[in-house]
Protein backbone atom coordinates (compact mmCIF):
# COMPACT_ATOMS: atom_id res chain seq x y z
CA UNK A 1 0.00 0.00 0.00
CA UNK A 2 2.59 2.52 1.13
CA UNK A 3 4.92 1.24 -1.55
CA UNK A 4 2.69 2.38 -4.40
CA UNK A 5 2.63 5.92 -3.00
CA UNK A 6 6.38 6.30 -3.39
CA UNK A 7 7.53 7.36 -6.84
CA UNK A 8 9.78 4.68 -8.34
CA UNK A 9 13.26 5.97 -8.88
CA UNK A 10 15.48 4.60 -11.58
CA UNK A 11 18.22 2.62 -9.78
CA UNK A 12 21.48 4.55 -9.60
CA UNK A 13 24.69 3.25 -11.17
CA UNK A 14 26.15 2.66 -7.70
CA UNK A 15 23.25 0.49 -6.66
CA UNK A 16 23.40 -1.58 -9.83
CA UNK A 17 27.14 -2.18 -9.38
CA UNK A 18 26.57 -3.19 -5.81
CA UNK A 19 23.79 -5.54 -6.77
CA UNK A 20 25.89 -7.17 -9.51
CA UNK A 21 28.82 -7.55 -7.13
CA UNK A 22 26.58 -9.16 -4.52
CA UNK A 23 25.20 -11.51 -7.15
CA UNK A 24 28.70 -12.50 -8.29
CA UNK A 25 29.72 -13.27 -4.71
CA UNK A 26 26.58 -15.32 -4.11
CA UNK A 27 27.23 -17.34 -7.28
CA UNK A 28 30.83 -17.94 -6.22
CA UNK A 29 29.71 -19.27 -2.83
CA UNK A 30 27.07 -21.49 -4.41
CA UNK A 31 29.56 -23.01 -6.87
CA UNK A 32 30.94 -25.83 -4.66
CA UNK A 33 27.44 -27.20 -4.10
CA UNK A 34 26.58 -26.76 -7.77
CA UNK A 35 29.67 -28.66 -8.91
CA UNK A 36 28.97 -31.41 -6.40
CA UNK A 37 25.54 -31.93 -7.98
CA UNK A 38 26.82 -31.70 -11.58
CA UNK A 39 29.53 -34.33 -11.06
CA UNK A 40 27.10 -36.63 -9.22
CA UNK A 41 24.90 -36.72 -12.34
CA UNK A 42 27.68 -37.83 -14.70
CA UNK A 43 27.18 -41.35 -15.99
CA UNK A 44 29.72 -43.83 -14.62
CA UNK A 45 32.62 -44.67 -16.88
CA UNK A 46 32.52 -41.45 -18.86
CA UNK A 47 36.06 -40.03 -19.30
CA UNK A 48 36.70 -37.07 -16.98
CA UNK A 49 36.00 -33.64 -18.47
CA UNK A 50 38.83 -31.67 -20.07
CA UNK A 51 37.27 -28.26 -19.50
CA UNK A 52 34.82 -26.75 -17.03
CA UNK A 53 31.60 -28.67 -17.36
CA UNK A 54 28.43 -26.72 -16.53
CA UNK A 55 26.00 -29.52 -17.26
CA UNK A 56 26.78 -33.23 -17.87
CA UNK A 57 26.18 -34.59 -21.38
CA UNK A 58 23.82 -37.33 -20.32
CA UNK A 59 22.61 -36.59 -16.80
CA UNK A 60 21.47 -39.70 -14.97
CA UNK A 61 20.33 -40.81 -11.51
CA UNK A 62 22.19 -44.09 -11.88
CA UNK A 63 24.89 -43.14 -9.34
CA UNK A 64 22.34 -42.64 -6.59
CA UNK A 65 21.02 -46.15 -7.14
CA UNK A 66 24.57 -47.48 -7.26
CA UNK A 67 25.28 -45.92 -3.84
CA UNK A 68 22.90 -48.29 -2.11
CA UNK A 69 24.37 -51.37 -3.77
CA UNK A 70 27.99 -50.40 -2.97
CA UNK A 71 27.58 -49.75 0.77
CA UNK A 72 24.69 -50.18 3.25
CA UNK A 73 23.60 -46.57 2.71
CA UNK A 74 20.13 -47.30 4.13
CA UNK A 75 21.59 -48.31 7.48
CA UNK A 76 23.86 -45.25 7.64
CA UNK A 77 20.90 -43.06 6.79
CA UNK A 78 18.80 -44.69 9.52
CA UNK A 79 21.55 -44.13 12.10
CA UNK A 80 21.96 -40.49 11.10
CA UNK A 81 18.20 -39.98 11.27
CA UNK A 82 18.08 -41.59 14.73
CA UNK A 83 20.79 -39.26 15.97
CA UNK A 84 19.10 -36.07 14.76
CA UNK A 85 15.63 -37.25 15.81
CA UNK A 86 16.79 -37.42 19.43
CA UNK A 87 19.42 -34.73 19.57
CA UNK A 88 17.83 -31.84 17.66
CA UNK A 89 14.64 -31.55 19.78
CA UNK A 90 16.68 -32.18 22.92
CA UNK A 91 19.16 -29.44 21.98
CA UNK A 92 16.35 -27.01 21.25
CA UNK A 93 14.89 -27.69 24.70
CA UNK A 94 18.07 -27.60 26.78
CA UNK A 95 19.59 -24.62 24.93
CA UNK A 96 16.45 -22.49 25.12
CA UNK A 97 15.86 -23.33 28.78
CA UNK A 98 19.45 -22.46 29.63
CA UNK A 99 19.28 -19.24 27.60
CA UNK A 100 16.05 -18.30 29.39
CA UNK A 101 17.54 -19.11 32.78
CA UNK A 102 20.67 -17.08 32.02
CA UNK A 103 18.70 -14.09 30.76
CA UNK A 104 16.66 -13.86 33.95
CA UNK A 105 19.44 -14.47 36.41
CA UNK A 106 20.51 -11.51 38.53
CA UNK A 107 24.02 -10.11 38.53
CA UNK A 108 26.73 -10.96 39.48
CA UNK A 109 25.81 -14.55 38.61
CA UNK A 110 24.43 -13.69 35.23
CA UNK A 111 27.65 -12.05 34.15
CA UNK A 112 29.75 -14.86 35.59
CA UNK A 113 27.79 -17.60 33.83
CA UNK A 114 27.69 -15.73 30.51
CA UNK A 115 31.47 -15.32 30.73
CA UNK A 116 31.76 -19.04 31.46
CA UNK A 117 29.65 -19.78 28.37
CA UNK A 118 31.77 -17.48 26.20
CA UNK A 119 34.81 -19.26 27.61
CA UNK A 120 33.30 -22.67 26.75
CA UNK A 121 32.94 -21.38 23.20
CA UNK A 122 36.72 -21.11 23.00
CA UNK A 123 37.56 -24.62 24.22
CA UNK A 124 38.75 -26.49 21.13
CA UNK A 125 36.78 -29.71 20.59
CA UNK A 126 40.02 -31.66 20.32
CA UNK A 127 40.71 -30.76 23.98
CA UNK A 128 37.94 -33.11 25.06
CA UNK A 129 38.64 -36.00 22.69
CA UNK A 130 40.89 -37.97 25.03
CA UNK A 131 38.88 -37.89 28.19
CA UNK A 132 35.52 -38.15 26.50
CA UNK A 133 36.74 -41.33 24.86
CA UNK A 134 37.65 -42.63 28.32
CA UNK A 135 34.32 -41.61 29.86
CA UNK A 136 32.40 -43.23 27.03
CA UNK A 137 34.36 -46.44 27.37
CA UNK A 138 33.84 -46.55 31.17
CA UNK A 139 30.09 -46.02 30.82
CA UNK A 140 29.79 -48.51 27.97
CA UNK A 141 28.53 -45.83 25.58
CA UNK A 142 31.53 -46.06 23.25
CA UNK A 143 30.55 -47.37 19.79
CA UNK A 144 26.89 -46.51 20.47
CA UNK A 145 24.97 -43.63 18.91
CA UNK A 146 24.70 -42.11 22.40
CA UNK A 147 28.32 -41.03 22.10
CA UNK A 148 27.15 -38.63 19.38
CA UNK A 149 23.88 -37.59 21.06
CA UNK A 150 25.25 -36.82 24.53
CA UNK A 151 26.04 -33.09 24.00
CA UNK A 152 22.37 -32.50 23.14
CA UNK A 153 21.52 -32.88 26.82
CA UNK A 154 23.82 -29.94 27.58
CA UNK A 155 22.48 -27.42 25.07
CA UNK A 156 24.25 -28.91 22.03
CA UNK A 157 26.91 -26.19 21.85
CA UNK A 158 27.61 -23.06 23.92
CA UNK A 159 26.87 -20.86 20.91
CA UNK A 160 23.28 -22.08 20.75
CA UNK A 161 22.73 -21.23 24.43
CA UNK A 162 24.20 -17.77 23.85
CA UNK A 163 21.91 -17.20 20.85
CA UNK A 164 18.87 -17.86 23.06
CA UNK A 165 20.36 -15.75 25.85
CA UNK A 166 20.86 -12.74 23.54
CA UNK A 167 17.33 -13.14 22.24
CA UNK A 168 15.68 -13.36 25.65
CA UNK A 169 17.73 -10.43 26.96
CA UNK A 170 16.03 -8.30 24.36
CA UNK A 171 12.48 -8.98 25.54
CA UNK A 172 11.41 -6.41 28.16
CA UNK A 173 12.06 -7.81 31.67
CA UNK A 174 8.86 -6.15 32.98
CA UNK A 175 6.88 -8.78 31.10
CA UNK A 176 8.40 -11.58 33.12
CA UNK A 177 8.12 -9.57 36.35
CA UNK A 178 4.40 -9.18 35.72
CA UNK A 179 3.99 -12.88 35.02
CA UNK A 180 5.93 -13.68 38.17
CA UNK A 181 3.75 -11.35 40.29
CA UNK A 182 0.63 -13.02 38.98
CA UNK A 183 1.98 -16.31 40.23
CA UNK A 184 2.94 -17.84 36.89
CA UNK A 185 5.63 -20.49 37.04
CA UNK A 186 8.93 -20.00 35.22
CA UNK A 187 7.85 -22.79 32.87
CA UNK A 188 4.69 -20.86 31.94
CA UNK A 189 6.69 -17.69 31.31
CA UNK A 190 9.14 -19.65 29.16
CA UNK A 191 6.46 -21.53 27.27
CA UNK A 192 3.92 -18.78 26.68
CA UNK A 193 5.89 -15.53 26.81
CA UNK A 194 9.50 -16.15 25.86
CA UNK A 195 9.39 -18.89 23.22
CA UNK A 196 6.61 -17.46 21.00
CA UNK A 197 8.68 -14.26 20.66
CA UNK A 198 11.87 -16.12 19.79
CA UNK A 199 10.78 -17.66 16.50
CA UNK A 200 13.70 -16.43 14.36
CA UNK A 201 16.14 -17.76 16.97
CA UNK A 202 14.32 -21.08 17.18
CA UNK A 203 14.60 -21.41 13.39
CA UNK A 204 18.29 -20.49 13.42
CA UNK A 205 19.10 -22.88 16.27
CA UNK A 206 17.10 -25.62 14.57
CA UNK A 207 19.28 -25.31 11.47
CA UNK A 208 22.52 -25.01 13.43
CA UNK A 209 21.70 -27.95 15.71
CA UNK A 210 20.67 -30.12 12.77
CA UNK A 211 23.95 -29.24 11.06
CA UNK A 212 25.91 -29.91 14.24
CA UNK A 213 24.67 -33.48 14.58
CA UNK A 214 23.94 -34.42 10.98
CA UNK A 215 27.25 -33.09 9.60
CA UNK A 216 29.36 -34.47 12.45
CA UNK A 217 32.38 -36.23 10.98
CA UNK A 218 34.88 -36.16 13.83
CA UNK A 219 32.91 -37.77 16.64
CA UNK A 220 31.85 -40.82 14.62
CA UNK A 221 35.47 -41.27 13.49
CA UNK A 222 36.62 -41.14 17.11
CA UNK A 223 33.91 -43.08 18.92
CA UNK A 224 32.18 -45.46 16.50
CA UNK A 225 33.92 -48.72 15.66
CA UNK A 226 31.10 -51.08 14.77
CA UNK A 227 29.78 -50.84 11.19
CA UNK A 228 26.21 -51.24 12.49
CA UNK A 229 26.39 -47.82 14.14
CA UNK A 230 28.12 -45.86 11.36
CA UNK A 231 26.42 -42.64 10.32
CA UNK A 232 26.31 -41.06 6.85
CA UNK A 233 29.59 -39.08 7.07
CA UNK A 234 31.45 -42.31 7.90
CA UNK A 235 29.56 -44.11 5.13
CA UNK A 236 30.67 -41.58 2.53
CA UNK A 237 34.24 -41.89 3.80
CA UNK A 238 34.00 -45.69 3.35
CA UNK A 239 32.79 -45.08 -0.18
CA UNK A 240 35.97 -43.09 -0.76
CA UNK A 241 38.12 -45.89 0.62
CA UNK A 242 36.44 -48.38 -1.72
CA UNK A 243 37.04 -46.38 -4.87
CA UNK A 244 38.75 -43.03 -4.46
CA UNK A 245 38.65 -42.09 -8.14
CA UNK A 246 35.03 -42.88 -8.87
CA UNK A 247 34.08 -39.19 -8.71
CA UNK A 248 30.45 -39.41 -9.86
CA UNK A 249 29.70 -42.00 -7.18
CA UNK A 250 31.57 -40.10 -4.45
CA UNK A 251 29.73 -36.91 -5.33
CA UNK A 252 26.41 -38.75 -5.32
CA UNK A 253 27.23 -39.82 -1.76
CA UNK A 254 28.23 -36.27 -0.85
CA UNK A 255 25.04 -34.82 -2.34
CA UNK A 256 22.92 -37.48 -0.63
CA UNK A 257 24.37 -36.45 2.73
CA UNK A 258 24.25 -32.70 1.95
CA UNK A 259 20.73 -32.28 0.58
CA UNK A 260 18.74 -32.76 3.82
CA UNK A 261 20.64 -30.09 5.73
CA UNK A 262 20.72 -27.69 2.77
CA UNK A 263 16.99 -28.07 2.15
CA UNK A 264 16.25 -27.48 5.84
CA UNK A 265 18.47 -24.40 5.74
CA UNK A 266 16.90 -23.03 2.56
CA UNK A 267 13.43 -23.65 3.97
CA UNK A 268 14.04 -21.91 7.27
CA UNK A 269 16.53 -19.18 6.32
CA UNK A 270 13.86 -16.55 5.48
CA UNK A 271 13.00 -16.66 9.19
CA UNK A 272 16.44 -15.44 10.23
CA UNK A 273 18.30 -14.11 7.18
CA UNK A 274 15.61 -11.81 5.74
CA UNK A 275 15.81 -8.04 6.30
CA UNK A 276 12.87 -8.11 8.69
CA UNK A 277 14.13 -10.91 10.89
CA UNK A 278 17.65 -9.49 11.35
CA UNK A 279 15.99 -6.25 12.38
CA UNK A 280 13.55 -7.99 14.71
CA UNK A 281 16.42 -9.58 16.63
CA UNK A 282 17.19 -6.08 17.86
CA UNK A 283 13.68 -4.70 18.28
CA UNK A 284 13.98 -3.63 21.90
CA UNK A 285 16.85 -1.16 21.58
Amino acid sequence: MTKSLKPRRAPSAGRVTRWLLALAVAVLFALPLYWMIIVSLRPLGLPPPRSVEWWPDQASWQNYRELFSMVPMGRYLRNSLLVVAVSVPMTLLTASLAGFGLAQLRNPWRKRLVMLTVFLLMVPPSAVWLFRYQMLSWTGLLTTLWSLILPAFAGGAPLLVLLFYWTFRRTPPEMYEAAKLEGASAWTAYRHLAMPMARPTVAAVLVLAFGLFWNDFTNPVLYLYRPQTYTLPVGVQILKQLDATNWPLLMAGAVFMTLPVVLLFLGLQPLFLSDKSIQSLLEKD
Partner: protein
Amino acid sequence: MNRFRHLFYTYDSQLRLFLLPFLLGSIILIVLPALITVGVAFTRYNAIQPPVWNGLENFRTLLESPLAWLSLRISLQFIFLAVPLRLLGALLLALLLQARGRWFGSLRAAAYLPTIIPEGSFALIWLWILNPLYGPLNAVLGALGLPTPDWLLDPVTARLSFVLMTLFTIGEGMVVLLIGLKTIPRIYHEVARVDGATAWQIFWRITLPLLTPWLLVLTFRDIVVSLQNTFTPSFVMTYGGPYYATTYVPLLLYELAFDLFDFGAAAAMMVVLYVLTAALVIGIINLVDLNRYDEIA
Protein backbone atom coordinates in the same frame (compact mmCIF):
# COMPACT_ATOMS: atom_id res chain seq x y z
CA MET B 1 9.23 -34.00 51.54
CA ASN B 2 7.71 -30.64 52.31
CA ARG B 3 11.14 -29.20 53.01
CA PHE B 4 12.13 -29.67 49.39
CA ARG B 5 8.95 -28.30 47.86
CA HIS B 6 10.44 -24.84 47.53
CA LEU B 7 13.13 -26.28 45.26
CA PHE B 8 10.60 -26.72 42.50
CA TYR B 9 7.87 -24.28 43.33
CA THR B 10 9.41 -20.82 43.41
CA TYR B 11 10.04 -19.00 40.18
CA ASP B 12 13.74 -18.49 40.86
CA SER B 13 14.42 -22.08 41.81
CA GLN B 14 12.75 -23.18 38.60
CA LEU B 15 15.07 -20.88 36.71
CA ARG B 16 18.02 -22.61 38.33
CA LEU B 17 16.61 -25.97 37.29
CA PHE B 18 16.42 -24.69 33.70
CA LEU B 19 20.14 -23.97 33.79
CA LEU B 20 21.05 -27.30 35.35
CA PRO B 21 21.30 -29.56 32.25
CA PHE B 22 23.48 -27.06 30.40
CA LEU B 23 25.77 -26.28 33.33
CA LEU B 24 26.12 -29.81 34.62
CA GLY B 25 26.47 -31.24 31.11
CA SER B 26 29.08 -28.67 30.12
CA ILE B 27 31.11 -29.40 33.24
CA ILE B 28 31.02 -33.15 32.61
CA LEU B 29 31.46 -33.02 28.84
CA ILE B 30 33.75 -30.01 28.35
CA VAL B 31 35.32 -28.50 31.47
CA LEU B 32 36.39 -31.71 33.23
CA PRO B 33 37.76 -33.43 30.10
CA ALA B 34 39.72 -30.30 29.17
CA LEU B 35 41.19 -30.00 32.67
CA ILE B 36 42.00 -33.69 33.05
CA THR B 37 43.86 -33.54 29.74
CA VAL B 38 46.23 -31.08 31.40
CA GLY B 39 46.91 -33.63 34.16
CA VAL B 40 47.37 -36.50 31.70
CA ALA B 41 50.08 -34.47 29.93
CA PHE B 42 52.42 -35.25 32.84
CA THR B 43 51.86 -39.01 32.79
CA ARG B 44 52.62 -42.04 30.69
CA TYR B 45 49.19 -43.28 29.68
CA ASN B 46 48.02 -45.64 26.94
CA ALA B 47 44.28 -45.60 27.80
CA ILE B 48 44.43 -49.21 29.07
CA GLN B 49 46.88 -49.34 31.99
CA PRO B 50 46.46 -46.70 34.71
CA PRO B 51 48.46 -43.50 34.10
CA VAL B 52 51.97 -43.28 35.58
CA TRP B 53 53.47 -39.92 36.57
CA ASN B 54 56.46 -39.08 34.41
CA GLY B 55 56.89 -35.35 34.88
CA LEU B 56 58.00 -33.41 31.82
CA GLU B 57 58.98 -36.52 29.83
CA ASN B 58 56.16 -36.07 27.27
CA PHE B 59 57.14 -32.47 26.63
CA ARG B 60 60.77 -33.47 26.22
CA THR B 61 59.76 -36.08 23.63
CA LEU B 62 57.71 -33.50 21.75
CA LEU B 63 60.60 -31.04 21.79
CA GLU B 64 62.79 -33.63 20.13
CA SER B 65 60.16 -34.61 17.58
CA PRO B 66 60.58 -32.83 14.23
CA LEU B 67 56.99 -33.74 13.35
CA ALA B 68 55.63 -31.96 16.43
CA TRP B 69 57.60 -28.83 15.54
CA LEU B 70 56.47 -28.98 11.92
CA SER B 71 52.86 -29.46 13.00
CA LEU B 72 52.97 -26.48 15.36
CA ARG B 73 54.69 -24.30 12.77
CA ILE B 74 52.20 -25.02 9.98
CA SER B 75 49.29 -24.65 12.42
CA LEU B 76 50.43 -21.18 13.52
CA GLN B 77 51.12 -20.29 9.90
CA PHE B 78 47.58 -21.39 9.09
CA ILE B 79 46.09 -19.30 11.91
CA PHE B 80 48.03 -16.17 10.95
CA LEU B 81 46.98 -16.50 7.33
CA ALA B 82 43.44 -17.88 7.60
CA VAL B 83 41.99 -15.94 10.55
CA PRO B 84 42.60 -12.38 9.24
CA LEU B 85 41.46 -13.37 5.75
CA ARG B 86 38.34 -15.09 7.10
CA LEU B 87 37.46 -12.02 9.19
CA LEU B 88 38.05 -9.70 6.26
CA GLY B 89 35.91 -11.96 4.07
CA ALA B 90 33.09 -12.06 6.63
CA LEU B 91 33.23 -8.27 7.00
CA LEU B 92 33.16 -7.69 3.24
CA LEU B 93 30.26 -10.13 2.86
CA ALA B 94 28.32 -8.44 5.65
CA LEU B 95 28.93 -4.94 4.24
CA LEU B 96 28.01 -6.02 0.73
CA LEU B 97 24.95 -8.09 1.64
CA GLN B 98 23.52 -5.93 4.44
CA ALA B 99 21.44 -3.95 1.93
CA ARG B 100 17.69 -4.24 2.16
CA GLY B 101 15.89 -5.46 -0.87
CA ARG B 102 13.90 -8.32 -2.23
CA TRP B 103 16.85 -10.39 -3.40
CA PHE B 104 19.36 -9.73 -0.67
CA GLY B 105 17.90 -12.32 1.70
CA SER B 106 18.52 -15.01 -0.93
CA LEU B 107 22.01 -13.71 -1.70
CA ARG B 108 22.86 -13.93 2.02
CA ALA B 109 21.55 -17.49 2.04
CA ALA B 110 23.76 -18.36 -0.94
CA ALA B 111 26.82 -16.92 0.82
CA TYR B 112 25.99 -19.05 3.87
CA LEU B 113 25.60 -22.30 1.85
CA PRO B 114 29.21 -23.61 2.10
CA THR B 115 29.04 -23.19 5.89
CA ILE B 116 26.06 -25.52 6.22
CA ILE B 117 27.41 -28.25 3.88
CA PRO B 118 28.61 -31.28 5.90
CA GLU B 119 32.39 -31.16 6.39
CA GLY B 120 32.82 -34.58 4.80
CA SER B 121 31.02 -33.51 1.62
CA PHE B 122 32.82 -30.18 1.57
CA ALA B 123 36.21 -31.92 1.72
CA LEU B 124 35.22 -34.27 -1.12
CA ILE B 125 34.02 -31.53 -3.45
CA TRP B 126 37.25 -29.61 -2.87
CA LEU B 127 39.22 -32.74 -3.64
CA TRP B 128 37.50 -32.58 -7.03
CA ILE B 129 37.78 -28.79 -7.47
CA LEU B 130 41.51 -28.97 -6.72
CA ASN B 131 42.19 -32.00 -8.88
CA PRO B 132 45.14 -30.83 -11.00
CA LEU B 133 44.05 -32.65 -14.19
CA TYR B 134 40.26 -32.65 -14.26
CA GLY B 135 39.31 -30.16 -11.56
CA PRO B 136 37.26 -27.10 -12.50
CA LEU B 137 39.66 -24.70 -10.72
CA ASN B 138 42.60 -25.53 -12.97
CA ALA B 139 40.28 -25.63 -15.97
CA VAL B 140 39.26 -22.04 -15.23
CA LEU B 141 42.85 -20.96 -14.51
CA GLY B 142 44.06 -22.66 -17.68
CA ALA B 143 41.36 -21.01 -19.79
CA LEU B 144 42.48 -17.64 -18.43
CA GLY B 145 46.09 -18.43 -19.31
CA LEU B 146 47.13 -18.50 -15.63
CA PRO B 147 49.49 -21.06 -14.05
CA THR B 148 47.82 -24.33 -13.03
CA PRO B 149 49.51 -25.59 -9.84
CA ASP B 150 49.37 -29.17 -8.59
CA TRP B 151 47.47 -27.97 -5.47
CA LEU B 152 47.32 -30.84 -2.98
CA LEU B 153 50.33 -32.64 -4.43
CA ASP B 154 52.82 -29.93 -3.51
CA PRO B 155 53.48 -28.98 0.17
CA VAL B 156 53.21 -25.20 -0.30
CA THR B 157 50.12 -25.15 -2.52
CA ALA B 158 48.53 -27.87 -0.36
CA ARG B 159 48.67 -25.53 2.63
CA LEU B 160 47.37 -22.64 0.50
CA SER B 161 44.49 -24.90 -0.62
CA PHE B 162 43.50 -25.40 3.00
CA VAL B 163 43.40 -21.63 3.52
CA LEU B 164 41.44 -21.14 0.31
CA MET B 165 38.84 -23.72 1.39
CA THR B 166 38.25 -22.10 4.77
CA LEU B 167 37.57 -18.76 3.09
CA PHE B 168 34.28 -20.24 1.89
CA THR B 169 32.97 -21.26 5.30
CA ILE B 170 32.57 -17.79 6.79
CA GLY B 171 28.77 -17.75 7.03
CA GLU B 172 28.68 -17.60 10.83
CA GLY B 173 31.03 -14.63 10.90
CA MET B 174 28.93 -12.89 8.26
CA VAL B 175 25.71 -13.35 10.25
CA VAL B 176 27.32 -12.13 13.48
CA LEU B 177 28.61 -9.01 11.70
CA LEU B 178 25.24 -8.43 10.00
CA ILE B 179 23.68 -8.32 13.46
CA GLY B 180 26.55 -6.12 14.64
CA LEU B 181 25.97 -3.69 11.77
CA LYS B 182 22.28 -3.46 12.63
CA THR B 183 23.09 -2.43 16.22
CA ILE B 184 24.68 0.78 14.91
CA PRO B 185 21.98 3.46 15.06
CA ARG B 186 21.28 4.81 11.57
CA ILE B 187 21.27 8.35 12.89
CA TYR B 188 25.07 8.21 13.33
CA HIS B 189 25.55 7.69 9.62
CA GLU B 190 22.99 10.31 8.71
CA VAL B 191 24.52 12.95 10.95
CA ALA B 192 27.98 12.20 9.57
CA ARG B 193 26.68 12.46 6.02
CA VAL B 194 25.03 15.80 6.73
CA ASP B 195 28.37 16.98 8.11
CA GLY B 196 29.91 16.09 4.78
CA ALA B 197 31.76 12.88 5.67
CA THR B 198 32.59 10.57 2.76
CA ALA B 199 31.51 6.91 2.75
CA TRP B 200 35.14 5.97 3.37
CA GLN B 201 35.38 8.25 6.44
CA ILE B 202 32.07 6.94 7.79
CA PHE B 203 33.37 3.39 7.53
CA TRP B 204 36.70 4.09 9.29
CA ARG B 205 35.43 6.51 11.92
CA ILE B 206 32.00 5.09 12.77
CA THR B 207 31.25 1.62 11.41
CA LEU B 208 34.57 -0.07 12.14
CA PRO B 209 35.06 1.24 15.72
CA LEU B 210 31.51 0.23 16.65
CA LEU B 211 32.01 -3.22 15.14
CA THR B 212 35.25 -3.81 17.05
CA PRO B 213 33.75 -5.83 19.95
CA TRP B 214 32.03 -8.14 17.48
CA LEU B 215 35.20 -8.52 15.44
CA LEU B 216 37.16 -9.33 18.59
CA VAL B 217 34.84 -12.10 19.70
CA LEU B 218 34.97 -13.51 16.17
CA THR B 219 38.77 -13.36 16.15
CA PHE B 220 39.08 -15.27 19.42
CA ARG B 221 36.61 -17.89 18.32
CA ASP B 222 38.17 -18.22 14.89
CA ILE B 223 41.65 -18.81 16.26
CA VAL B 224 40.26 -21.94 17.92
CA VAL B 225 37.63 -22.97 15.38
CA SER B 226 39.51 -22.49 12.12
CA LEU B 227 42.42 -24.65 13.26
CA GLN B 228 40.03 -27.28 14.63
CA ASN B 229 38.22 -27.33 11.30
CA THR B 230 41.36 -28.46 9.49
CA PHE B 231 40.78 -31.92 10.98
CA THR B 232 38.22 -33.23 8.52
CA PRO B 233 39.91 -31.99 5.32
CA SER B 234 43.34 -33.14 6.50
CA PHE B 235 41.83 -36.54 7.36
CA VAL B 236 39.75 -36.92 4.18
CA MET B 237 41.77 -35.12 1.52
CA THR B 238 45.47 -35.48 2.27
CA TYR B 239 45.78 -37.52 5.47
CA GLY B 240 48.47 -35.04 6.50
CA GLY B 241 50.50 -35.22 3.30
CA PRO B 242 52.32 -34.58 1.08
CA TYR B 243 55.40 -35.15 3.26
CA TYR B 244 53.42 -34.22 6.42
CA ALA B 245 52.80 -30.75 4.93
CA THR B 246 49.20 -30.68 6.18
CA THR B 247 49.61 -32.55 9.47
CA TYR B 248 48.00 -29.77 11.50
CA VAL B 249 47.81 -30.16 15.27
CA PRO B 250 44.31 -31.75 15.40
CA LEU B 251 45.37 -34.53 13.02
CA LEU B 252 48.63 -35.06 14.92
CA LEU B 253 46.62 -35.29 18.17
CA TYR B 254 44.38 -37.87 16.55
CA GLU B 255 47.34 -39.94 15.39
CA LEU B 256 49.11 -39.77 18.75
CA ALA B 257 46.00 -40.67 20.73
CA PHE B 258 43.96 -42.99 18.54
CA ASP B 259 46.60 -44.59 16.31
CA LEU B 260 49.53 -44.90 18.70
CA PHE B 261 47.41 -44.80 21.89
CA ASP B 262 49.96 -42.47 23.45
CA PHE B 263 47.45 -40.37 25.40
CA GLY B 264 50.24 -38.74 27.43
CA ALA B 265 52.00 -37.29 24.38
CA ALA B 266 48.68 -36.24 22.82
CA ALA B 267 47.71 -34.44 26.04
CA ALA B 268 51.09 -32.69 26.16
CA MET B 269 50.59 -31.51 22.57
CA MET B 270 47.15 -30.23 23.58
CA VAL B 271 48.65 -28.27 26.48
CA VAL B 272 51.19 -26.66 24.15
CA LEU B 273 48.32 -25.66 21.87
CA TYR B 274 46.33 -24.22 24.84
CA VAL B 275 49.31 -22.11 25.87
CA LEU B 276 49.94 -20.79 22.36
CA THR B 277 46.24 -19.99 21.84
CA ALA B 278 46.03 -18.24 25.21
CA ALA B 279 49.15 -16.23 24.37
CA LEU B 280 47.59 -15.14 21.08
CA VAL B 281 44.32 -14.14 22.74
CA ILE B 282 46.08 -12.22 25.52
CA GLY B 283 48.28 -10.51 22.94
CA ILE B 284 45.21 -9.35 21.02
CA ILE B 285 43.48 -8.20 24.22
CA ASN B 286 46.52 -6.08 25.03
CA LEU B 287 46.37 -4.49 21.60
CA VAL B 288 42.79 -3.28 21.93
CA ASP B 289 40.79 -1.57 24.61
CA LEU B 290 38.18 -3.95 25.94
CA ASN B 291 35.85 -1.45 27.60
CA ARG B 292 33.33 -1.87 24.83
CA TYR B 293 32.84 -5.51 25.70
CA ASP B 294 29.53 -4.80 27.50
CA GLU B 295 27.59 -5.28 24.27
CA ILE B 296 28.11 -9.02 24.39
CA ALA B 297 27.40 -9.97 28.02
